[in-house]
Each structure stands twice: as C-alpha cells, then as structure tokens.
C-alpha cells in the first residue's frame, strides 16, 4: 500500500509561500509516497500552477471558494478535512499559518498531530524538537492512523522546480462558518528579502541602543549583502525593531547560509532560532558572551566601529 500525502499550501492569493516547497521535500522523504498539494483560494489557478511546477508533486487540487479570499483557519480546516479521507498523511508548514490551521484540521479528523517535524524516519516515524530544541524526540504514530503534522521549515530545503503535476479543480462540500472574519493585516513593507527564507541575515540585539542606531547601523550592511534584517526579543521589546523581525524560540526559527549577530549576547531562546544557520558570525564587545560558543567566526569589539568597516570592505 502506497502512502498518499496531502500538503496544505500556504499562499497570499498570488504567490505560493516557500514553506510549502519545504513540505514537499519532507513529504518526498516518506517512503512509497505520492504527493498532492491542496490550494484553497478565492481563485487558486495562479498558486496551483506554481505548486504543480514543484518537483515531487503528483497532483494539485485547486479549491476555489469565496471564503478563501483571505485564509482563515476556521474556514480552511473544514475544507481540508473534507478532502482528507483518501490520504494517509496531511502536512502543512510550521509557520504561523500552519500552526494555526493544522491542529484544527487534526481535531476535525480525530487525529493527533506531530508538530515541527524535523526529520522523516519512516512513514509513521518522525523526529521533532521539544523544550525549545533542547531535546529531540522520536515520535511513532499508531499503525493505521492518519498522520497529521507540521513541517519545520528550517529542517528542509525547498523542493526544486521541474515538476509538471496535473491541476484538478476540486469542489468541496464543507460547511464553512461565518463566525470568524478578517479585518486587516499590517505588514512593514520592505524591499529586503523575507527573513524566513533569506540566504543571509543581519541581526541586532539590545546593544544597538536605539531604534535609530539599529537602522543606521544594520540596514546599510544588510542592503550591501542583500540580507534580511532580524532582531532579538530584547531589541523588539525595547522598540528598536518591529516584532515580525524577531528571531528565536518565540519569534522566527530560521536557517540562513549566513547569520551575522551584532550586539547579541546569545540568550538560549535566541540561539534556538538560529541553530540551523550554516555559518554564524558574532560581533560583540563582551568576549564572554554565550553567542561566541556557537559562532563560527567571532569578533570582539565595538560594533559601531566594526559594522561600518565591514560594509566599507565589501565595496
């Protein structure tokens, strides 16, 4: 018996979120599997064709419904639950979208959920971090039960292009509640790469001292590197940076090629968010700062001198 894997696509109505391509990679690790991506949207055609182009995807279900103009867990969950019965696995990304909707789906299916899958060890065996990544647990789903899980983005590469899956328009008969309504989304508009998926990240901590210094010091370097900007919880709480820049256990968990930690001491909850970075550079005036325990390259000194100097050297 083959495994049939359903992946819940995340998108903004126009573009497929890269976290979905990582779910495809995770799904591809399940032995003897066939991957279907479900795109719930007001008009799913554009996003569905992006999903169909991912290598490893066999089928795309385009679920058009007016209530999908903005994806709400209360509306998406019954649609996915209605599609789920032929599938052995239902996966979504461990983003705020997936964390919101997947447990709702799991409960409708009377299934347990495996959150933050970081490795696939078999069709019913997975590994996931607990205690903020301070322990890793191997989880086994009881035989015959549906596997519902969220996929930790930092643990999987996105599936490459090269697929040509069939897109099927699919109507679902699900009762969609009207008790939850979208009001607004305020996002800081930025021309920089997205923090969650950027190859390079320049990140600042409380040592920056002010919102103005945070911008003046970090942004020119980030722009020169084509990097996203991140921040510690302390820097966010102090008002130096907006909360969507927060990296760490309670913010974003990221895995860039290069992470430059500037004026960051390295609290455990922050390190949890950057454990999977390929290369970590730390710049801090305190040579005893815990960030140096995990940094590949450490530079002790005054960040206000060092950072502009690095920027000059990159010209």
């Amino acid at each position, binding site marked *: 018996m083959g495994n049939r894997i359903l992946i819940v696509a995340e998108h903004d109505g126009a573009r497929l979120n890269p976290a979905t391509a990582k779910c495809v990679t995770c799904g591809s690790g399940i032995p003897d599997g066939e991957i279907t991506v479900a795109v719930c949207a007001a008009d799913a055609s554009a996003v569905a064709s992006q999903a169909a182009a991912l290598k490893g995807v066999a089928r795309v279900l385009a679920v058009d419904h007016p209530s999908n103009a903005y994806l709400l867990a209360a509306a998406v969950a019954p649609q996915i639950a209605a599609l789920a019965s032929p599938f052995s696995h239902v996966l979504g990304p461990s983003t705020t979208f997936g964390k919101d909707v997947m447990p*709702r789906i799991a409960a409708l299916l009377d299934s347990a959920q495996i959150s933050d899958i970081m490795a696939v060890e078999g069709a019913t065996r997975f590994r996931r971090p607990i205690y903020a990544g301070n322990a890793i647990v191997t989880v086994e789903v009881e035989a015959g039960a549906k596997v519902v899980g969220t996929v930790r983005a930092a643990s999987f590469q996105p599936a490459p292009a090269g697929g040509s899956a069939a897109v099927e328009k699919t109507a679902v008969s699900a009762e969609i509640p009207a008790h939850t309504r979208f009001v607004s989304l305020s996002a800081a508009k930025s021309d920089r790469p997205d923090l969650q998926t950027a190859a390079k990240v320049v990140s600042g901590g409380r040592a920056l001292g002010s919102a103005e210094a945070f911008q003046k010091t970090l942004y020119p370097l980030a722009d020169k590197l084509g990097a996203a900007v991140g921040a510690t919880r302390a820097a966010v709480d102090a008002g130096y940076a907006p909360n969507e820049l927060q990296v760490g256990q309670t913010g974003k968990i990221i895995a860039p090629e290069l992470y430059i930690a500037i004026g960051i001491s390295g609290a455990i909850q922050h390190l949890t968010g950057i454990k999977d970075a390929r*290369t970590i550079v730390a710049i801090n005036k305190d040579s005893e700062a815990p960030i140096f325990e995990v940094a590949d390259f450490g530079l002790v000194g005054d960040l206000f001198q060092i950072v502009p100097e690095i920027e000059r050297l990159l010209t």
Partner: protein
Amino acid sequence: MKRILVGVKRVVDYNVRIRVKPDGRGVITNGVKMSVNPFDEIALEEALRIKERGAAEEVVVATVGPADCQQQLRTCLAMGADRALHVQADGVIEPLVAARALLKLAEKEQPFLVILGKQAIDDDNSQTGQMLAALWQRPQATFASKVELEGEKARVTREVDAGLETLEVDLPAVITTDLRLNEPRYVKLPDIMKAKKKPLETLTLAALGVEQRQRLKLTRFEPPPQRQKGVKVKDAAELVAALKSKGIL
C-alpha cells in the same frame, strides 16, 4: 454569569536547563522546579484584566494533569482566579485529550471566552487551543497580542509571520496568547494565603467521559547536536577575508 475559562499547564520552569535522561526515555524532571507555563500566565493575566475592567464576572482556571498540578492552580488562584478545576490524570496527556477535557468544561461552565497560552514550553506543540476551538465549533484567534471586546464580538490582533493580523470573532471564542499581550502580575504573599481558601474542584477524565488515549508513541529522547565552537578573528578585515575564502561572501 459572564465567565472566562483559562487553560493552564504545569511545566518545567523556563529557567531550568533541560537534560535528557541517559537511557533516552525522557528528560529529567525529578527534583526540577515546576511552574505555570509562561504563556498560560499571560492568558490568566489577560482574563483578570478583562474582569477588572468589568467585562467579565468570574475567571475559572483549569488544568489536566497529576495531583501535583494543584500547586500551579493555587498559584493561579493567588494571581486572582476565582476558582480552579483540576482534571486529575497521570501519564501522557496529548493535546487532543486536553482539548476534549476542556471542551467538557466549556460545555459545563459556558464561558464567553476560553484563553490559553499559544504553546506549552515543554512539548512545544501549540495545538490544544486550536483543537478545542475545532471540537467546540467556535472561532479561534491564536498568537494574540491584543484583545478588544465589543459586545458579542472580540477583535483580536495576532502576531503572524507577515506582521500583525486583526480578526473579528463572534463570542464565545478561543484565544491563545503570544508573548507581547501583557506582562503577568507578581503574586503577593497575602494573596497566597487567600488563595488557600478559594474553591478547587477535582474531577477525572473518566467522569468527564474523556478517554485518555495515547496515539503517539515517544520512542526515544536525545540531546540536540551541538554546534562546534568556531574561531575568533581580530578585526573586520580578517573577518571579511575569512568569509570570502570560505565562499560565503
């Protein structure tokens, strides 16, 4: 009565350094400090503030877990909860079981809001609130950083990857709390004394008609791989040269 139900969990205190047992069968919790899950403290704080504004009359705190959980329920009563419900259960309680138990309590208590932390800092599952909302067939507003009540509705600002999202939900609803929603109050000694006299009711899963099923087997625990400590460079020029020579820049 206008009532808020708050779900809490007893967890290893966030300051404890977590260590995996040498036999790989769990993490060491013997003799370790236990606390109310920090996100659940935020949930309780929010409920108390709503009550103090006059928008609720009673705050009921509930947990599912072993007898020792009563310590954490007493802490919640000392913070200001009016009464506590303890659903006693030993062993692994999966989020779906906790959600089913909370559903039974919600049906009994008829709260207009159920507030929980967005996740417990032990299992990091982030499931119980969403599962409860699904089973209760009510709205969910997860990862809340602002809650405004307007009659029969709530307007909730959520911390999402893209920024701040605002939803309007009909009540009753389930809200899960993010870090920036509020800063929980400290418990004062007289309140601890007072809390001893507040009602704490003990129930069982069986009495609620909830089966304590474990669907996920936790077969092995291990410490995370450690990053190797790197090298110190002396200045910006050496750093840039090193990154270039490794092909990173």
